[in-house]
């Protein structure tokens, strides 16, 4: 097995990183300048003004890490059993050492921050101002160790001194410490195979995530090249880089901090987490749209256009539907789905009826939708009178044709000689157009005044009625950001959501254990668990827990997205029609033989797919995620393309799509921070990473077939007898009812 080689290689790399790469970052300043700590206690200060921090115990961390890494590497030479034991021991040692070392580091930095703030206070006391309460401040100077940094700042404010900039911000682990943790985790993972019952599930999980994980790693590695090429090492002006080691440290830290920026805010702060969920919401919708299409053997690249149509419909419903909120809001959401669904059904119908390729048609419809949006929101579109007459003529002719197609008798005539009819209509149209397009006296241009367009230079609609708005996160909890900006701490009833979550878990568990026919019993037991949990939590006094609510654009459309994911899962895997769709996707011929109506399925699949994409309007229009509750031309339709990456990464399964969308939400949130943090990097780096993920997943991560071919994988895992696998070329799944694309 080459797991030995892989672990030995990672261990060697980590060993190298302990010598060369920053172990942790002491301090970060605006402009991404940093002071980094290399083991043992070597500090490279690119900011030029960080007071060095002595971290005790670094020598021990270094020695223990090296011993553990040597153990991991050496274990590769041993026989099966001792090897796994050694991996377990060394892995545990490595993780333990790194965590302990990081803990000491954090303590040392905290202490340094306290001391630094105390120095600030002390120097302020020497030059007192009338607002100062010197007693309070002096107490701070005397006994700083007993306080946390937040308490210290708060006390200083009580004493009349406002400390604006905290020193040593952004202290965090560096690439070397991170690699130590990763190597330790891998050693533990492979060592755990000592326990036989764990082997199969571990293998299965590894094989399942191999392609997406490798693709993401490759994409991040490719992005590393770009980041290093574009972003010079941020450093204080006048700072001279001496020697290759310092240069290398700077490069590694720049790269590391770029990645850290991409991930840390979303995963480490409440606000960032909420923002990344907000970024993920539309991606869940478009990912589901594309994924559902893939399952049905259709490639829906038209999600951007369907998003636009959904947004237009939602805007119209939200502006003009009368009635109370409980009626208008669901109807507006439904309108969004309807708009997207119709726009999706059109290429589906063209494929089912004429065999026109849905890939190109959906792409073309994206352009048409973009023009339509601009047309509706641009100021006063003007038609010259002759042009208007031509359009009217065209509308009349198309109307007549449609009516003729609907009347059976006329339809028969047209079917007899379709080409002749088309030619005649075409010539008539040309002649008619020539006649009506002659300028007439008294012609004046027709200016279209669209009532929903906001006057002004900005292309946007009026804001929706209040009855059609989904409240943003702070508003859900009754916070008015205009009165109390920033993060608010409010008491929240956590018992109900917790109880509902427990009920859901109980339902899933019951589905595993109970026999399928006892449907009522499963739901009943889940409901019972929910009630009991609610009663128990209420009794424990969990009704009002203080929660920090960040000012985020996250809104209930996230819940709609989750509901959509559940719906798609249920639809695809639990209904007859969903089964038919998947069968048509895998093998259209076999599905047709089995009684599936391919044409109807294509139209329906595209309509549902489009409806899912249209639902993004619940986030962007009804949810007010773009500044205000209005339809704007700047609606980010690229989310539709990103949905392709989401669906591919999520393996076209709703659970995978939600997880992939969250990952991309994190990346997008991080991307917007790249703009702020670095001088030469923008969020476009993230869109490049997404494109690369698509490319690498298409190439199956360049992995050997053992991981990628389902049959081979099953054989390698021991799920199939060896003779069941032959090297047959797999048949291409994507074939429409009519071959070709003309």
């Amino acid at each position, binding site marked *: 097995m080459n797991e030995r080689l892989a672990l030995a290689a990672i261990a060697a790399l980590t060993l190298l990183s302990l010598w060369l790469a920053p172990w942790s970052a002491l301090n970060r300043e605006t402009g991404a300048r940093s002071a980094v700590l290399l083991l043992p206690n070597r500090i490279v200060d690119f900011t030029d003004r960080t007071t060095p921090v002595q971290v005790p115990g670094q020598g021990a961390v270094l020695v223990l890490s090296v011993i553990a890494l040597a153990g991991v590497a050496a274990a590769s030479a041993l026989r099966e059993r001792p090897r796994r034991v050694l991996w377990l021991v060394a892995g545990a040692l490595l993780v333990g050492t790194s965590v302990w070392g990081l803990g000491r580091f954090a303590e040392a930095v905290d202490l340094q921050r306290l001391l630094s703030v105390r120095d600030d206070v002390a120097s302020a006391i020497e030059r007192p101002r009338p607002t100062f309460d010197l007693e309070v401040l002096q107490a701070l100077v005397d006994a700083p160790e007993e306080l946390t940094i937040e308490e210290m700042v708060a006390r200083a404010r009580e004493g009349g001194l406002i400390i604006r900039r905290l020193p040593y911000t952004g202290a965090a682990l560096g690439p070397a410490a991170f690699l130590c943790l990763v190597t330790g985790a891998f050693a533990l993972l492979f060592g755990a195979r000592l326990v036989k019952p764990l082997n199969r599930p571990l293998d299965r999980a590894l094989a399942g995530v191999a392609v997406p994980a490798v693709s993401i790693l490759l994409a991040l590695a490719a992005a590393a090249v*770009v980041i290093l*090429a*574009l972003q010079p090492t941020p450093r204080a002006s006048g700072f001279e880089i001496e020697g290759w080691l310092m240069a290398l440290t700077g490069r590694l830290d720049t790269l590391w901090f770029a990645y850290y920026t991409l991930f840390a805010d979303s995963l480490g702060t409440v606000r960032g987490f909420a923002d990344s969920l907000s970024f993920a919401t539309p991606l869940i919708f478009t990912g589901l749209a594309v994924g559902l299409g893939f399952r049905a053997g259709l*490639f829906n*690249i038209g999600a951007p256009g369907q998003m636009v149509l959904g947004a237009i419909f939602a805007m119209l419903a939200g502006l003009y539907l009368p009635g109370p909120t409980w009626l208008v809001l669901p109807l507006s959401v439904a309108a969004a789905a309807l708009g997207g669904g119709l726009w999706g059904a059109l290429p589906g119908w*063209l494929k089912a*009826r*004429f*065999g*026109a*390729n849905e*890939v*190109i*048609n959906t*792409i*073309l*419809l994206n*352009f*048409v939708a973009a*023009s*339509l949006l601009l*047309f509706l929101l*641009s100021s006063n*579109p*003007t*038609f*010259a009178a*002759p*042009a208007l007459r031509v359009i009217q003529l065209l509308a009349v002719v198309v109307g007549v044709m449609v009516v003729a197609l609907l009347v059976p008798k006329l339809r028969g005539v047209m079917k007899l000689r379709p080409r002749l009819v*088309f030619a005649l209509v075409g010539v008539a149209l040309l002649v008619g157009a020539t006649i009506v397009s002659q300028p007439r006296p008294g012609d004046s*241009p027709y200016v*279209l005044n669209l009532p929903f367009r906001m006057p002004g230079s900005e292309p946007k609609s009026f804001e929706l009625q209040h009855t059609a708005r989904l409240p943003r996160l702070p508003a859900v909890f009754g916070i008015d950001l205009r009165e109390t900006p920033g993060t608010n701490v409010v008491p929240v009833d956590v018992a109900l959501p917790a109880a509902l979550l427990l009920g859901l878990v109980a339902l899933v568990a019951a589905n595993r254990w109970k026999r399928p026919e006892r449907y009522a019993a499963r739901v009943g037991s889940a409901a019972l668990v929910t009630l009991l949990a609610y009663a128990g939590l209420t009794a424990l006094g969990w009704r009002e827990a203080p929660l920090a609510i960040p000012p985020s654009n996250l809104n209930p459309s996230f819940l709609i997205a989750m509901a959509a994911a559940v719906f798609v899962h249920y639809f695809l895997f639990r209904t007859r029609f969903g089964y038919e769709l998947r069968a048509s996707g895998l093998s259209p011929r076999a599905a047709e033989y089995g009684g599936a109506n391919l044409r109807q399925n294509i139209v329906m699949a595209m309509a549902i797919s489009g409806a899912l994409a249209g639902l993004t309007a619940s986030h962007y229009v009804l949810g007010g995620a773009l500044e205000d509750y209005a339809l704007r031309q700047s609606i980010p339709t*690229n989310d539709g*393309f990103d949905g*392709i990456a989401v669906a*591919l990464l999520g393996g076209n399964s709703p659970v995978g799509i939600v997880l992939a969308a969250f990952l991309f939400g994190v990346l997008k949130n991080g991307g917007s921070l790249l703009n702020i943090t670095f001088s*030469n*990097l*923008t969020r*476009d*780096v*993230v*869109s*490049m990473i*997404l*494109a*690369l993920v*698509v*490319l690498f*997943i*298409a*190439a*199956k991560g*360049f992995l050997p077939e053992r991981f990628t071919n389902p049959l081979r994988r099953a054989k390698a895992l021991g799920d199939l007898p060896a003779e069941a696998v032959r090297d047959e*070329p797999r048949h*291409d799944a*994507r074939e429409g009812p009519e071959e*070709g*694309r*003309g």
Partner: protein
Amino acid sequence: METVVLLTLLASALRAATPLLLAALGGLFSERSGVVNIALEGIMLFGALTAALVTYYVELPFVREATGARVWYAPWVGLLAAMIVGALVAGVHAVVSIRYKADQIISAVAINLMAIGVPAVILTGLFGNSTTSGTITNRLPMWSLGPFTFSPLVYLAFALVPVVWFVVFRTPFGLRLRAVGEHPAAADSVGISVTGMRYAGVMLSGVLAALGGAYLSIGAFNQFITEMSGGRGFIALAALIFGKWHPLGVLGATLLFGAFQALETQLGGSALLPPTVVQSLPFILTMLVLAGFVGRAVAPKAIGKPFTKS
């Protein structure tokens, strides 16, 4: 008066058709060999970007010394670089979809997505804004024909039509290319390298599509703008289908689309229709064409299917 208007319209139709024709002729090589190439759009963008950047940096030392300095070879170097980059980008599509047997459409979509993200990243690094490159002084020259002047690429595009026809239908290379696209197993059995021919077809399509892109940035304009191809790659693909994968058909189809775009430019000047309406007309026309209202086409048989040698 009328004739002058018509001739002007015709000339601008020829200019508008040029990038479409180049890309569609490129697509012809790829699709005749059995590889769908939706990546034309992305390759055009990469070609446009490369041409603009290389021209910009070749002329930069001269332009620094004297504003507006003529450096006759700068755009040609840019053109050459665009062709190389086009071949490389198409090569990525080829490797992923031929060697790794990826879904050809997904691989191409990835390249199109990259053509949105990568130029923005590069432009930010070089020029500090993510949408436009620096303007170049030395565009491709204009060669006159009667009262009109055209870029050399216009002449090249139309001259390529008979050349492509000859290569595809009258040379051993063309025969093999078509054989590989129609029945790869049969071609393989008589000793033709299926993967080799497909690599050649896809890379050729990259070279031609990149020329089309270069025409946009250094032929018809003087800088690169993100997403400046505006769907021309997709329209070229539609023209390829409309033209039934035949050079002459492709010529007709691209001329039709070119005429439409020229009309759009002419109409855009007068206040006849809102520009947004005119913009969407070529796309609607293309959809009507694809739906078979204007004739049907039969694709190369093995198109879109990876070949596994048995």
